[in-house]
């Protein structure tokens, strides 16, 4: 009850004025969203007969990138998918002027085959519960007034003018908010420690160095709703007594940097940042720091080093940053999504937030659902939602109706969850026993064409390039793990390699300097746990059952099934497949490079793995 009310209250609506929202997040822009935006802007200039002039806005990432470019019309609440500039005139004449939907652009439910007008009716959105993502796709992130109109900066006003600093901390504690970046540390406790610590000035930092491959929750919030981060940080600054803040943004996130810079400027102009904010005793300002391109800088102490002008090498956290952080001063570092929740909690109270989720994991979590799943994108659901619900009910199941093999959770620090455990609820604690973790929220769906040994190798290879290299277990451990996994994928593995993998992994988990090294073995250990037979098949049978490892995959076309459609020929980069149209095709072994493209492209399952 409380949750839904919270959602709609932040959406006061724009009255009668027709608005066209064109998604211009990174995903939709790649698909041509900006061209659609331009077409609308241009065409709507030439419609003097319309009584209200629709406003065209660029919005942040809706997350439903598979169906982009997305266009949403309010207040009618009609969403169009895969819109092209050529569709714009029809949308204007039919829908904006006559109120008639353009059927072919509506989302079509794959099961019921129905055309749905509102994205709120689709499975993808219906089962979501947006708090951190409440404004994404509803506002122009470059317009502070859009944010304000939807309740923005009201929480800050409420706190600054009517609450004690300790009250703010107590509210966050009562809400049960835990860090959304992966660590899950109780936020209220963190703020309390900083408030209690001696030292001045104190600092507030937003960790926007989202680095998990496959995760783009924070990107979406920084691009689509930068002010929620700013407001959250202001509330944190008030609570702990900080005067300066930094938003550390990953270097590769150009659009996020752009929108955050503008939002900071706009907030300053309106008096939400700077001296005596809203005539209160809080003076606080924020500086943007652009990362240098290092995944390890997502680790708190490495992030601090980076801001201080040093290489991103972490140090032991026997003394927390809340005591000795930036330049040795008490510092609060929280993730983007964590900050995005703060204004909502402060405005609507701790109880309504704590009413959502599970016993120890309150509120919602944003997941990035990607990989071999039908509906890819960002999904925000209450903590405790099961993996099955997210992947099948919201995600629409596995792509091309292939069989589910595993879902990787928690990025390079996490593990793979097999089909048998799909009914596990996701929250901070539930996945650890299964050998994984929720982490920052990445959910990568894998099918039977994914090799789990290669997945382990991939993650270790990623970390080999990202480890800072300071400590022995991580640097040399990752090197050794990568050598062994590569050998196994190339058919040079031995059974003793598995013992060595486990041995080195345990030392890495216990002795590494930071969480990168400590969790690096997780993908290896979890794939060994649930897919050991796949490792054994690589080692003992010299075969990759998924047809991925090139040295261990031999393909042949089954003459009984092949109908000569020629799709495989088109996808073969080395012209190794011969055959006449509508005749059985053959792979020339002497040319074939075993890349598996034909195997994956054949719609008739006519290509087999030996």
């Amino acid at each position, binding site marked *: 009850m409380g949750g839904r009310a919270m959602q709609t209250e932040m959406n006061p609506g724009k009255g009668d004025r027709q608005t066209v929202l064109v998604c211009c997040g990174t995903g939709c822009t790649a698909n041509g969203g900006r061209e659609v935006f331009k077409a609308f802007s241009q065409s709507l200039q030439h419609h003097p007969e319309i009584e209200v002039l629709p406003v065209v806005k660029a919005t942040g990432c809706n997350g439903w990138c598979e169906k982009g470019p997305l266009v949403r019309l309010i207040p009618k609440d009609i969403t169009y998918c895969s819109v092209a500039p050529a569709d714009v005139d029809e949308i204007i004449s039919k829908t904006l002027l006559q109120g008639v939907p353009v059927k072919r652009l509506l989302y079509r439910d794959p099961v019921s085959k129905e055309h749905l007008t509102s994205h709120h009716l689709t499975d993808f959105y219906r089962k979501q519960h947006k708090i951190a993502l409440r404004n994404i796709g509803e506002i122009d992130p470059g317009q502070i007034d859009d944010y304000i109109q939807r309740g923005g900066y009201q929480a800050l006003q409420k706190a600054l003018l009517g609450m004690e600093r300790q009250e703010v901390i107590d509210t966050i504690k009562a809400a049960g908010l835990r860090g959304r970046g992966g660590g899950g540390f109780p936020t209220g406790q963190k703020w309390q420690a900083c408030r209690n610590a001696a030292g001045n000035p104190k600092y507030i930092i937003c960790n926007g160095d989202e680095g998990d491959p496959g995760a783009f929750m924070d990107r979406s919030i920084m691009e689509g709703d930068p002010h929620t981060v700013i407001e959250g940080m202001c509330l944190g600054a008030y609570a702990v007594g900080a005067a300066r803040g930094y938003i550390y943004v990953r270097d590769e996130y150009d659009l996020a940097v752009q929108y955050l810079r503008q939002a900071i400027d706009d907030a300053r102009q309106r008096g939400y940042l700077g001296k005596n904010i809203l005539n209160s005793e809080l003076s606080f300002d924020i500086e943007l720091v652009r990362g240098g391109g290092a995944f390890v800088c997502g680790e708190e102490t490495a992030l601090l080093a980076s801001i201080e002008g040093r290489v991103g090498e972490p140090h032991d956290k026997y003394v927390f940053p809340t005591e000795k952080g930036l330049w040795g001063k008490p510092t609060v570092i929280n993730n983007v999504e964590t900050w995005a929740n703060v204004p909502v909690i402060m405005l609507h109270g701790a109880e309504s937030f704590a009413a959502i989720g599970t016993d120890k994991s309150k509120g919602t979590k944003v997941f990035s659902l990607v990989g071999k799943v039908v509906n890819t994108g960002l999904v925000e659901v209450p903590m405790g939602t099961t993996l099955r619900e997210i992947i099948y009910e919201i995600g629409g199941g596995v792509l091309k109706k292939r069989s589910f093999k595993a879902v990787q959770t928690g990025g390079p620090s996490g593990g793979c969850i097999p089909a048998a455990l799909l009914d596990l609820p996701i929250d901070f604690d539930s996945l650890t026993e299964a050998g994984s973790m929720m982490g920052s929220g990445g959910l990568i769906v894998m099918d039977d064409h994914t090799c789990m040994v290669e997945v382990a190798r991939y993650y270790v290879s990623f970390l080999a390039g990202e480890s800072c290299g300071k400590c*022995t277990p991580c640097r040399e451990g990752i090197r050794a793990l990568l050598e062994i996994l590569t050998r196994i994928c190339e058919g040079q593995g031995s059974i003793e390699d598995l013992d060595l993998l486990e041995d080195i992994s345990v030392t890495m988990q216990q002795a590494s300097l930071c969480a990168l090294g400590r969790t690096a073995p997780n993908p290896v250990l979890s794939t060994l746990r649930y897919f050991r037979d796949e490792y054994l098949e690589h080692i003992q049978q010299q075969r990759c059952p998924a047809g991925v490892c090139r040295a261990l995959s031999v393909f042949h076309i089954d003459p009984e099934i092949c109908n000569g459609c020629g799709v495989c020929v088109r996808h073969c980069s080395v012209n190794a497949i011969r055959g006449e149209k509508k005749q059985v095709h053959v792979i020339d072994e002497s040319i074939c490079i075993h890349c598996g493209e034909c195997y994956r492209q054949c719609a008739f399952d006519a290509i087999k793995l030996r």
Partner: protein
Amino acid sequence: MMKINVNGQQREAHAGESILDLCRREGIPIPTFCYHQAFGGQGACRMCMVEIKEEGQTRSRMVAACTYPLTQPAEITTESEQILRIRRTIAMLLARRADKNALLETMCQKYGASRLPAIVVEPANCILCGLCIHACAEMGKSAIWSMFRGVDKRIATPYDEASDDCMGCAACAQVCPTQAIKVEEEGAVRRIWNKTFALVACTRCGKPYATRDELDYLGQHGDFGQEKLCEACRRKTLAANMQTFQA
């Protein structure tokens, strides 16, 4: 002073000192690669991991002795199966970088580490303990630093070229536990980190003992005596002076 129990025995620790400092003082052995008294703990090699359970905690945890500050009563274990496994694995991994080095050979034997195939690192035998960097920063002008990252990390001068900041003092080579830093000396010339230096001769015995650059730097930072004497001759002179003084 705090009461700290180490391996079942009560010891007294200064507030804030590291576990390693306490153990060194009390004669409790903990192996290290990257620790040096002059520079303090770095927490890099991870050879010094020990188990600690502080007052009020239910479980013990594994921490680096060289950087962990003692702030309350606690129980520490410096030898356990898990700890030995860590030492064995660290030795095994580092020995790849310094395959024929005596120190690593000793450590591998001591902890029963198997040997993995050697890897080629630059400089050869470098185990990335970082002591050379500290020495250069303290004694010199930070001519070297750890460059690149991850498995490619290595100690070097910028661009691997002769550094304007290098004085050729070889303090780095002196602290290196595996003698990985090459110092080539022939006559009155020393070559180190791709740079050639002229050596100054000792005025008493004539042996080339320090680089011109090094002596100039020392001269700028304080008066270390006008007489250019090598270490041995300086001691002899000092001893002679003391005798004269006492006489």
